[in-house]
């Protein structure tokens, strides 16, 4: 049963959605690697958030709940997805890693391909921990697992990425970077 929102609640949700949709879409893009899918995930996540808004806003946990619904939408979509996209990334992977550090675009594609070779939950851990800068505890809450699980997934995922990216992982320059969160 979907709870019905009061006008104020719906207006509040609309404000939240308008402000945060870009941020959620960027996180979704890191989760799925496709613009259209990121848009769909964001839409699904916001719709689920809207349906739960009545209790979410009262609990003052809007952002953390948004993370949870986005991750759930991603994992659910992953379960349903066919393997065609995976095959495409595998193909891309065959050609990309050797040139990974040469050009930004290639590095981006390489990173996305590398992320796509991680199990969905491990990929979600990487995005939440290192893009969203969530703590281990908050990541565990978003994923509905233990902190120990987050730590082990994170450790394995980083090792895998280091292995896949090789030099590309270590040659990220350390000059100041603008806030990419899109807030």
């Amino acid at each position, binding site marked *: 049963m979907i709870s019905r929102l*009061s*006008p104020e609640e719906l207006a509040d949700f*609309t404000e939240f959605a308008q*402000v945060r949709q*870009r941020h959620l879409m960027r996180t979704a893009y890191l989760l799925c690697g496709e*613009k259209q899918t990121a848009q769909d995930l964001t839409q699904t996540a*916001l719709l689920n958030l*809207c349906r739960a808004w009545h209790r979410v*806003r009262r609990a003052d946990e809007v952002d953390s709940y948004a993370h949870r619904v986005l991750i759930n939408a991603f994992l659910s979509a992953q379960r349903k997805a066919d393997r065609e996209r995976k095959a495409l990334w595998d193909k891309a992977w065959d050609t990309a890693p050797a040139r990974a550090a040469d050009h*930004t675009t290639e590095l981006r594609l390489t990173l996305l391909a590398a992320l796509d070779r991680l199990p969905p939950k491990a990929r979600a851990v990487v995005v939440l921990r290192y893009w969203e800068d969530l703590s281990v505890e908050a990541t565990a809450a978003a994923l509905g697992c233990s902190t120990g699980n987050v730590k082990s997934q994170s450790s394995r995922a980083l090792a895998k990425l280091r292995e896949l990216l090789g030099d590309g992982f270590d040659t990220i320059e350390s000059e100041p970077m603008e806030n990419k969160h899109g807030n």
Partner: protein
Amino acid sequence: METEHSENERMHRLLGGALDDVDLDANVVPAVLAGYDRGVRTRRYQAAGAALAVLAVTVGTATLLPRSGSGTTRPATSTTGKPSETTAPVIKKPAVDLSRCAHERWARMYSDGMTAPSGTLSEDPAAEQADCRALLSAFAAVFPDATITPAYFGVLELDPRVDQSKVKQDRAKDSAPDLMRDTGTEQLYLSTHPDDPANVYQTGGGTIVTPAGRESFGVYVFKPAAGDASPADCDTVTADCTPIAGSGGWHGALTSKTAPMDTVDKTAILTDGHGNFVRVTFNGKDSTGWYTVGAYAADGGAGDPNRGKWINRWTGKLAPGNWPPATPALTDAQWLQLLESTAFHTYLDSFVKYHAKLPADPLH
């Protein structure tokens, strides 16, 4: 520790780099709200975002009373010719311009306080018009200088200026960007032209404007869940609570609760002691007054210099920040003054009768 921090930073840069040059500015909010509306019919709308939920058409609020320089009273007349049995309380002073209550198109309401599905019009707008007059008269009796604005929302399907075939096509595709591309300008127009016939008005709530500010409010009938302690009694309410003194049987409790998004929700629950309950809500914000450029642009307003800012649709004023600023029209004491007034309690009597005569909600 430093190594771990360095690795975190490196990963953050790596992930940030993956977002370079990726255009992720699509505006999915209208589609989300339309999706929500398909799953659930919402309560009456007083807010821009709320109306967007129903129709993907942004609403505004109609400046009702008094028009500057206008000291005349023009009693509203029903355009249907059928007088409603739900008549407004007779409040002769102060003079109130009720002309906008004569708007012809009103949303169909149900007896449980719910709004009929998107765009469904009332078959007997005289009842809604009478309630509008009663509400405005009650406010004017307490705050003669205030301007009350009823809720309204635009219905593209009623708008002869838009290409209906495109609207139909966009709706069929469920494409919010396409709808914004084809009708965004018109939607913005409707939001600031309340008298336009393509706007549909709605009973219960609206916006109050005073020299101090402008804020939205809602008025709803409701029934407490069976077994619940009386929500109209501060003794049974745990939140910050102020008793609302009674007259004519109406009395209640005004609670205040901090909410996310820099909001403090105020909720007044009033009961007449005969099983009728009314909820009045406000929070010092004008939920209809502010919008972002992305709300009317297919591309989310990419490249617009005002992107990320809130724009007041009436004044053009810009406001930074995650949420629109609070602009309270009344102080808490003034709200309490209204809620304890005989004029408002008289309105509540008529409001309850109005609802009792509305058609039953087919979903309940």
